[in-house]
């Protein structure tokens, strides 16, 4: 009988050892990679910073991107959305269908690092330089989300950066702002109408996925399909309504929606606070540009149809393209100052920014 007890104890000890093999620091808040605690050090409330489930780098950024010509990029359908970056005279196109799987591309334009990010959950894209704030770095997917929006981490200081807020929300660089580069989002078909020479991201070499399927089912269209809680739920528009929004220095936001049937918003250009909101539903194109040129002159813009990539003409006769560059007229070659704008789903905006004002909107049912 004593022998039996000894054997029992031995086996229990073996089990205990096996458990110990998983780490002596088992338990919440011990040996984990999740940063922070009690909002200390965070620029945002941690109640709305959530673990997305995949872990840090669980979604793999593309760090050595490969590109195709426009003619070669036959894996993109005309109605699929793409992100266009025009930087240092080079135009590159990043299809949503690739970014849905990778979320971040660490790219090089001439000699400059540029990180392009896309958050499938909030539908927002951003580009910023890798060399700013004293760092020269790539970025990765942190695995955390703030109000459903992507949080990136930089691989030099391990600081965490909010994609939609454009600044660091945790780490040694907290509150430092990124050096952003504007992006244009539209469909592949609309981009092709622009007839611009471009390089098109082909996806991760070596990945077995062919990017043919959207990995989130009907997430893009189901207004009830939200994965994580929001700080300020907002039902003025449908959750997945795509809007163009502009953020000012106080983190206040103004926005227009692309398909929203506002009776007052039949025109393609709406001006508010010195910003022209340009939208064309048929082209699935929304762009925000300043109405004031660098010499302080305020311009009156009109939409120019059927002239892509030109979308505006002003009272001086200048024609401006989607990137805010004058391509004809007395100001040819002049560049409008980029403004901090994004296209994305409506639902996270009120939670991430201080004030969210919808321009010319009509309340649902109103």
């Amino acid at each position, binding site marked *: 009988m004593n022998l039996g007890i000894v054997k029992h104890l031995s086996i229990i000890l073996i089990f205990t050892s096996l458990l110990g093999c998983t780490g002596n620091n088992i338990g919440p808040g011990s040996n984990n990679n999740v940063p922070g605690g009690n909002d200390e050090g965070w620029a945002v409330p941690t109640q709305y910073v959530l673990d997305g489930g995949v*872990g840090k*780098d669980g979604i793999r950024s593309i760090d050595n991107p490969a590109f195709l010509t426009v003619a070669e990029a036959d894996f993109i359908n005309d109605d699929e959305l793409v992100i266009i970056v025009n930087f240092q005279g080079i135009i590159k196109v990043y299809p949503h269908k690739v970014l849905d799987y990778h979320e971040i591309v660490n790219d090089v334009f001439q000699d400059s690092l540029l990180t392009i990010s896309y958050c499938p959950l909030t539908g927002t894209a951003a580009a910023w330089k890798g060399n700013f704030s004293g760092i020269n770095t790539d970025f990765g997917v942190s695995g955390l989300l703030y109000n459903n929006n992507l949080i990136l981490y930089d691989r030099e200081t391990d600081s965490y950066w909010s994609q939609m807020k454009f600044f660091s929300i945790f780490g040694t660089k907290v509150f430092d702002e990124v050096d952003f580069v504007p992006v244009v989002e539209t469909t592949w078909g609309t981009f092709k109408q622009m007839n611009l020479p471009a390089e098109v991201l082909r996806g991760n070499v070596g990945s077995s996925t062919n990017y043919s399927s959207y990995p989130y089912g009907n997430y893009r269209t189901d207004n009830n399909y939200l994965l994580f809680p929001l700080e300020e739920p907002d039902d003025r528009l449908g959750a997945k309504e795509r809007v163009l929004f502009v953020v000012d220095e106080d983190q206040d936001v103004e926005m227009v929606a692309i398909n929203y049937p506002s009776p007052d918003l039949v025109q393609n250009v709406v001006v508010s606070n010195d910003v022209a909101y340009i939208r064309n539903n048929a082209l699935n194109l929304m762009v925000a540009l300043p109405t004031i040129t660098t010499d302080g002159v305020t311009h009156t813009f009109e939409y120019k149809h059927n002239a892509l990539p030109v979308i505006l003409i002003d009272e001086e006769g200048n024609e401006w393209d989607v990137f805010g560059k004058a391509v004809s007229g007395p100001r040819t070659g002049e560049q409008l100052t980029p403004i901090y704008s994004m296209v994305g789903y409506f639902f996270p905006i009120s939670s991430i920014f201080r004030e969210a004002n919808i321009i010319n909107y009509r309340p649902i049912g109103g």
Partner: protein
Amino acid sequence: MRVSVILLLLCLFFITSRKSYSQACCSGGAPISFNLVFSTAPIHTFQFALSYDYNNLGTLLESSDKFNDNNRTRATHAILLNTGYTFSKQFAIDAVIPYVVQVRKVYFQNSTSDYTTVAGIGDLVVLPKILVFGANSINRHLQLGAGVKAPTGKSNVKINQIALNADMQPGSGSWDLIFMANYYQTLRSRKSVGFNSTINFRLAGTNKNYLEVQEYQFGDDFYWLNSISDQFPLNNALLSPTFGLRYRFIGISKINGVELDNTGGQWLTALIGVSLIWNNLPTLNVSGELPIYSNVNGIQLSTSYRFNIGIQQQLSLKK
């Protein structure tokens, strides 16, 4: 008899009536129902078992296709304590309580980028069982069970104040119903050869307090395990190898009633195990499972292998 038929019909009704796609990473939790190990026992017998279960999810799949990406693993370690008691020839009850360690690892450029662990008591399963026939036979029996999985495990664990998703929690936060049917039959020509067929179905309830303001429902979980075992003398003990096939089907999870993509799936696994049976000493059970076929919804980490080792002992109170 009537009760058991009703239980079986209920089980079949739920399986066929609920819309059940499948799921994946969230299937990674401790497979408690796999560990309802007790077979029939004499009246007034206590049964105890202590086991360690390791479930490794390291295969990234899109449907049945393997991704060329092995940079992440999810593993669930579980220590499971089983107890059972046989009240009469017909009625018995089993209970399982796990201690769960959830581990998530991601590798990036040959180093560990993410290593997150959560540990705690898991959910308790209590399963009353009825013997439909075979009370007086060691050669064949059919028993049915219906019970509950109670949310004794935490489902709101945070690390540094940052909430983890449902997959990484030790508990599900929901009350679930468990149904079980087990048939055993020995070969007439060789009584030591036994065929065992077990069906288990977990009807998942809803965690009403997921991330404090949301509702989360794991997919329903069904498996059918068919195995065959034999016994051979080995010194003063009996060696009993087992071979089996398990079909498992997990329904799609829901968040606030909306179906979650990349959850749910179906798997066919091969099981191989061995038991060492001594007189008056605990039986030692060791088993492993490897997937033969996996088909997940969307993209998910899927089980690469599973391993279980445990001891089991009976204690008769009958004088």
